[in-house]
């Protein structure tokens, strides 16, 4: 891993402004890949189509995690699915953000006592935005998007930094839940 050089053109654009521009750029063109686990996937079409149209904020659904910077986890996360979500998350490039839909990723929701769903997504991958509601409606999703864009702008949405900082802890938590993970 070559050392990360934050600012390519130090002479022309001062450091602070370059970070601001970068954040503005990634705010205005969030490309999302949605991991349709639970019931949230149904909420995505209304937000994309004419009634709510998230594309006006520059958010378009992409087919692969490589091209995306926003991961939507839309519903309960079973242990099996968590392994795939972590893999997709790691295939994305920095800076990457995660939005978790509904109450299941927050505290397990109606599956609070189920033996194979994880109760809190945050323990395994850094989540930047939770949307409460047992499947939030498109208005809530649009509101979440706007709020995330504001967080990105103010630099609070630093899930990917946290993942890098506490990488070992996240991995340990993940290994506690599922076994055969050979990178």
């Amino acid at each position, binding site marked *: 891993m070559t050392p*990360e050089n934050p600012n390519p053109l130090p002479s022309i654009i001062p450091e602070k402004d370059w970070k601001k521009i970068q954040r503005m750029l990634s705010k205005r063109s969030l490309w999302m890949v949605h991991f349709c686990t639970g019931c949230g996937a149904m909420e995505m079409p209304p937000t994309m189509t004419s009634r709510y149209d998230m594309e*006006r904020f520059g958010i378009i659904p992409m087919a692969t995690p490589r091209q995306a910077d926003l991961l939507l986890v839309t519903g309960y996360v079973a242990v099996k699915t968590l392994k795939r979500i972590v893999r997709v998350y790691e295939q994305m*490039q920095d800076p990457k953000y995660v939005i978790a839909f509904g109450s299941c990723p927050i505290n397990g929701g109606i599956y609070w006592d189920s033996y194979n769903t994880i109760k809190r997504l945050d323990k395994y991958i850094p989540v930047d935005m939770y949307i409460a509601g047992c499947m939030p409606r498109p208005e809530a999703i649009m509101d979440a998007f706007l709020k995330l864009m504001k967080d990105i702008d103010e630099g609070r949405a630093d899930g990917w930094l946290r993942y890098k900082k506490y990488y070992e802890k996240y991995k340990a938590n993940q290994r506690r839940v599922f076994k055969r993970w050979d990178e």
Partner: protein
Amino acid sequence: MTDWANILINAGLTALYLFLAICVGLLFMGIARKVTARIHNRVGPPIYQNFLDVGKLLAKKSNIKHNWIFDFAPLFALAGVLLALAYLPMGGYRLLSGDGDLILLLYILVIPALGFALGAGASANPNAGVGVMRALTLMLSYEMPFLLVLLSLMIYYNTASLTTLLEKQMHSVWAIDVLPISALAADIALQGMMMEKPFDIPIAPHEIASGPLVEFGGNYLGMLMLYSAGSIVVETSLFVDLFLGGGIVLNPAVYGILAYVVNYIVWFALIFVVWMIAIFINAVFPRFRIEQAFKFYWKWPTLIAALGLAQAYIMSVILGVSV
């Protein structure tokens, strides 16, 4: 001294035109998304959205790479498309097309496609392999009518170099008035060339996770977006140069700089019209399967192009019309 001077001027102008072309390409992609959104009765992103997207992609922090062949894709793609743009007269200004002709341009168009296919192949993702196979099959299908159209133009105007073609169109009437059938076939072929909706089989996001682009992200995808912007301008401008007189309205020899500016604007308007035709079709059509696309292209457009070729052949050889 003078030839060094005008070489430098020519180079400078070429660089300027290339940069403008890329910006026009990105602008067109933004417009396309806006127009498609409005057709889908929704607001749609701002026109400059693609500039932001490219900016975000190029500013991505981390970069995922497979192997050294994987880097071929962005390098060859962008270099190839800029090369194609350099050999294509834009807005009447001939750039380098004096030193190369249509067949050279045809083969230069292949460099980015082959480099891109190499990079996709090196990404070892089966989706990419299938995507490139579809792209090449699609190329074989739309090249048939397109080559017949080029042939009809070359036979009718008895030249293969674009500059003489533009001059001939400037002095007399546009090629579309003389060979309307070929123009129609060319436009259908263009839809395939630009991989617009009925024929965006190779980069189908639902079936093969956007085909060859599956493993390209961040910096790679940014370069490839510049490539696709450039290729939009190449294809539309090729159609305009071949059939719509390359947007030459004022004779540069007479009016000098003003002619170049006016011609550029006319040229911009013409490629915008051609682009809009493609986008309108793109907004409403579902996606063909690759066999359907192949069968379609080798049936109707080839027939039309053959008719155009026959017309050109009859007019130029039998009736002896010399332009």
